[in-house]
Each structure stands twice: as C-alpha cells, then as structure tokens.
C-alpha cells in the first residue's frame, strides 16, 4: 500500500468521469453516493449512460439536471414513496427522449457478475414467458449443453466508472462495508475505474485486523474520497439513518420541472462541495439521523508466527 489514492471529490470526478461514459453509482437503498452524483451534475457532464439496479432519487436528480442520455436498470422508483418524476417526464408519451435498457434485479446482478468475471454472458432462470426479452433483445435464450434445458442469458456490463460509498477505507483504497452489500463488489470488479467514497479514512492496520470484512481491494480503486454523510439522504449502516423526510419532499419537488431546477440551484450548484451541503443541512438535522449503538463484537484471527 505505497501511495495514497486520497483525492477530493472534484478531482476524482474530473479525472475519472468523461462525457459519454457509462457510470454506475451502486448501492441497494444503502450507501448511495449522492455526493458523487451531485459533483457530476456540478461538473456538467453530458451524455452519460447511467446504470444502476434502482435508479433512485440520485438518478432522478441527474436526469433532471440533463447529464444522462440513457438508463440501464431493473426498478425505477422512489422506494416506499412512488415514482421518479423527472425520469417519467422524459420516458412517457410521444416525446420520450431518454433511452431505456431494462432488465430484472437478478439480470442486472448477473450482468455485473459477468463483467467482473470476464464472461461473455451470465445464465439465469428468469424471463421465461415474459415480454422482457422482446422489450430488450439483449436478453437471449441459451440451451444447456446438458439435457437441452433452456435458460436465459444476459450480457456482461462493464461500466467505465463505478462509484461506491462505504463506511471505511484506507489510503490505498482497501474498502470495508457492513450491512446491505447489494452488488457493489460485482459492479466494482466489472468497472474500468472505481471511485470509493467513505465516511471514514482509517489506517491500513484497521483494515488488516479484519480481512474478511474487505469488500473492495485497493488494487481496483482509482481514488478514495472522504465525505462524511456523503450518502445522505440514503443511509450508512451504523453511521446514520435514511432521511425519509427528504424522500417524501422529493416527490413534490420532482413533479415540477421548475421546482427541481430551483432545488438543484440551491442544493447542488449553489453549495461549495459536500461540505457546503452538510453545512446547509445543519448539525441538528444530521445529528437526528444518528442511530444508537449495536456493536458487532470481535473475533480472533490468531497470531501465527
């Protein structure tokens, strides 16, 4: 772990995300890097293909801000609240302008897995007797070489950039996550470039004390960005809760293109990075999201000399 990969968010996004790239900000409900999404908006990236199982508020904001050309996804919504209205505005009706490439959850997981494993396809028992292979001709049947059974295949997904939020990493990018793991590991290994955003930068010895907890090795990481509350309004297990108030507020904001524009002005373009966003949210709001304590306990790896 020789050199440090620590960078500012502005540096990391400028260096790794280019117009036209396929970008995946992953994390299933948990650990969604809103901080990175906002920086991409601020840097006015264009023509991005945004991949993600669940285009959440963050992609609704990015689509609303005009960075995206296309979505690759499996479930489109504001979880527990309703629809994504900025996305709906450009996908419904005669003037639908956002390209969609649609799978199921396991199909997306399989695509990242095939990408990570350098496989030309991933097989799964899904899609039988549905219209999904018609809507998306990249979902293709394949016969087993044993007994002629039919399954479906999805193609590998290898994003140019994958951005992962995590509880902690060391300077070399060795990253540990607990709580929901989603498909962050598969997505990161499938990526050409990985940016890790963390709540906390820790010493290498903290990572090395519990190597089974490491989800992403520094080997595949381009940059480590330290951004406490960087997943707000989503959550970071053990650090803060989902800020549900914002998920509810977004429903109203996103229904109105001009309200959305004002929100971006105020909370994205108008703040100085994530520090500005945190300051604007205020200490009290952030403190109200802190959970009580539920320690994992420690196990012993043994010292073998």
């Amino acid at each position, binding site marked *: 772990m020789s050199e440090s990969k620590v960078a500012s968010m502005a540096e990391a996004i400028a260096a790794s995300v280019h117009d036209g790239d396929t970008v995946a900000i992953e994390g299933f409900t948990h650990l969604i890097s809103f901080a990175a999404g906002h920086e991409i908006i601020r840097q006015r990236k264009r023509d991005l293909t945004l991949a993600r199982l669940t285009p959440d508020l963050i992609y609704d904001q990015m689509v609303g801000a005009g960075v995206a050309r296309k979505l690759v996804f499996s479930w489109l919504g504001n979880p527990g609240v309703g629809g994504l209205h900025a996305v709906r505005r450009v996908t419904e009706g005669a003037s639908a302008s956002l390209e969609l490439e649609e799978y199921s959850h396991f199909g997306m997981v399989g695509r990242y897995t095939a990408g990570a494993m350098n496989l030309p396809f991933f097989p799964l028992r899904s899609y*039988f007797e549905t219209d*999904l292979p018609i809507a998306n001709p990249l979902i293709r049947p394949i016969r087993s070489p044993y007994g002629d059974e039919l399954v479906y295949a999805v193609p590998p997904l290898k994003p140019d950039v994958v951005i992962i939020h995590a509880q902690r990493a060391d300077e070399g990018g060795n990253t540990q996550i607990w709580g929901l793991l989603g498909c962050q590991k598969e997505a990161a290994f499938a990526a050409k470039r990985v940016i890790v955003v963390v709540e906390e930068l820790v010493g290498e010895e903290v990572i090395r004390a519990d190597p089974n907890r490491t989800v992403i090795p520094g080997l595949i990481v381009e940059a480590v960005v330290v951004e406490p509350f960087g997943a707000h309004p989503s959550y970071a297990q053990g650090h803060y809760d989902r800020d549900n108030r914002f998920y509810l507020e977004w429903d109203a904001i996103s229904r109105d293109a001009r309200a959305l524009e004002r929100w971006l002005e105020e909370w994205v373009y108008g703040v100085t990075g994530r520090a500005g966003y945190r300051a604007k949210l205020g200490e009290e709001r952030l403190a109200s999201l802190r959970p009580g304590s539920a320690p994992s306990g420690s196990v012993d790896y043994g010292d073998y000399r």
Partner: protein
Amino acid sequence: MNALERVAATDFSASEMMIVAAARELAGRRVCFVGVGLPNIAVNLAKLTVATDLELVYEAGVFGARPARLPLSIGDPTIVTRATAVTSMFELFGFYLQGGLIDVGFLGAAQIDRFGNINSTVIGDYAHPTTRLPGSGGACEIAINAREVFVIMRQSRRSFVEHIDFRTSPGNPAGANGARIRQEQGWLGAGPSVVITDLGVYHFGGEGVMRLDSLHPGVTLEDVQGEMAWQPAVAERLVETAPPTAEELRLVRDVLDPDGIYTR
C-alpha cells in the same frame, strides 16, 4: 352504497381485511420473500398467528430479519441490525430464490389477467407509454422461482384486465402447455397461486385460471364483477371471508403498524 362504502361500514378497513386474509394464506409455509408495505405486515402477522416458524427473506440481502421498527423501505437499516445473515444480492437471488429455498414470494401488480400474468412495467405502448411503472425489479424471477406466489393488490376494472399491456411476470403455468414449458425450462415454482384483493380471495384451478373463492364481509359477487374486465370463474361454494378477529386487529393496529401507515 358501493362495495367500498359497505366495507367501510364494518369496523375494519379494506386494507386490514387484505392483510389478515393474506396472513392466513401463509399457514404452513416456512420461508417467505418479503416485500415492504402490505406484504411486510401480512407476513409479520402470519408469524405471530398461523405460521410462527416463518423465516423472512428480504431481496435486499437479509435473512432472519428482526426489525425493531416498521421498515420504511425494503432496505431499511433496521432489518439489518440483529438479522441472522446479511448477504450479497447475487447470493440472495442466486442461492435463496433461484436455488429453490423460497416457499412464498409476494408480488404487487398494476395489471393482472385471469391467468395471473402480471404487468408492473408500463401502461400503454412500451416505447411511448402513457405511464412508466417501476418495472420488474425482482418480480419476474420471484414469479418463476418461488415455490408459489401470492399477489396482493386492489381490484378495479383498470387493474383486473382482459389483456395486460406488458407481461413483466409470468402467470400460473398450469394446464398441458404449462407443464411442457415448465419442464423444458426447469421451473421450480407453481407461479401465482393466490390473489388477495380488497374485495375477495382467488385461487387458481387446474387450468391455471383465477377462481373467486371468497368474498370479504360486505362484498357481493356483483361488486366483484363490477371491478374486473372478465367474467370470473367462481367457486362452487363461494364463502365469505371470516372477518378479522379482535386479536388479528390488535396485532395489526397496536404492534405491526401503530402509525397506520399501511392500514388506514
């Protein structure tokens, strides 16, 4: 007085009746794939009443959840803390669901047909829809790989349709053609086996067609026929759903949804 007004005249809500009816259908089942909202409450009610050994699996990657509060979403941190196991989605969908460990999966739907085919993708044309819905998420693999599927949804002429606009999840694969398809494709599951609505409960007959088996208290056959686009098959002995017991209502109101988020 229309159906919903008549139901409103009882001392429980249509949502409460749906939840209670769904929970009762879980009797004898062991492992359930949980969605948030009505299914979450139904499953937890079953665990407290008819299926005390029920194990809960959340698609976010949680097995054996023990939530300390009502989860706000399917990935709420409260389902993680003190769970038995937390795992990747690869493993959850691959080993638990596709591996055949799930007895019952719950699905909602925007549209359903008499065969249990479900649309949760678009209303209208796929390329230029009038309404863009969430899409499959895990629904299409749940429908195929869970041993059976319970559908829970409100009933209307717009949702119980003759032809769905998009087939997101396959219906009940019974009948001769179904048997062939299932063998050729190695399906584990029996597809949708129960549909629970705000008006009644349906099961599927040998030919894979939805059959009305019970009407919720205060609902007539005419009410049901008025809220669907086809003439339903009706059980020879159509019964009235037993109303929620006092204990079921207490659990729903005091324990599972004290703020009435899902049940009012």
